[in-house]
């Protein structure tokens, strides 16, 4: 189980980077800054996966989230903004209520996490071969379903972008 000073140090540094970048995503007034900080957040989470010895997941996180999703978001920002960027990400009138709701949820979660006596086992490191085998045996039906979902999302995104055929 990981252990040692290096693991502790790595965890605190990565958790700090992740949470600081996520705070920036939420509180920055410039949408472009938020988009780039989102990429940093995803990389921080990938680092946290490394400290959990989930290397394959860390690679997938870096590729899919920090690569594809962050780039998509930046393109979305580029396509939908035209005025000045410096005030492109304002909060709405619900800051107090939203803050209260979020703090309540976090409070309940923290209380639950600290109050529960977690039974931690020996811990297991999952190999890529394990994940692949599960995908093609137990999880084959959801695996096929997710493939279909991705295809549907791809076609749907193309149709939405092009605007489809208008009936006249």
């Amino acid at each position: 189980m990981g252990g040692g000073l290096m693991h502790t140090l790595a965890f605190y540094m990565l958790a700090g980077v992740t949470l600081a970048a996520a705070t920036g995503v939420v509180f920055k007034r410039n949408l472009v800054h938020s988009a780039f900080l989102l990429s940093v957040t995803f990389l921080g989470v990938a680092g946290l996966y490394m400290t959990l010895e989930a290397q394959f997941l860390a690679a997938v996180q870096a590729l899919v989230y920090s690569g594809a999703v962050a780039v998509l978001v930046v393109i979305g920002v580029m396509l939908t903004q035209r005025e000045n960027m410096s005030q492109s990400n304002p909060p709405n009138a619900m800051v107090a209520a939203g803050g209260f709701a979020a703090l309540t949820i976090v409070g309940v979660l923290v209380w639950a996490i600290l109050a529960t006596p977690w039974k931690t086992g020996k811990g297991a490191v999952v190999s890529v071969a394990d994940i692949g085998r599960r995908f093609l045996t137990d999880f084959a039906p959801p695996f096929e379903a997710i493939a279909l979902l991705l295809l549907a999302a791809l076609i749907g995104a193309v149709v939405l972008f092009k605007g489809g055929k208008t009936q006249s």
Partner: protein
Amino acid sequence: MIGLSHYLLVGAALFGLGMFGLLTKRNLIAVLMSVELMLNSVNINLVAFSRYTATDAAAGQVFSLFIIAVAAAEVAIGLALAYAIYKGRGTVSVDEIDWLKW
């Protein structure tokens, strides 16, 4: 010594930040970013549980991979919708997308 609850606390903080952004952002794309933060926090929890309380360690990571795939589909559709709305209305402010309100 870093244990399971440290990761769960990071996940909870990330979830709270994402939820705050989801409730308070005015720009549709910023709302989508907040949803991504929340999905990531859930993934951290799943991987941490699979690492520390392992009755079936691989399942946790497989679930995370499914969530990543669904999140990728969600962000693609969400951005396509944002662009379609922008073409029709010239805005992506969720305060002004209120056709169903009367």
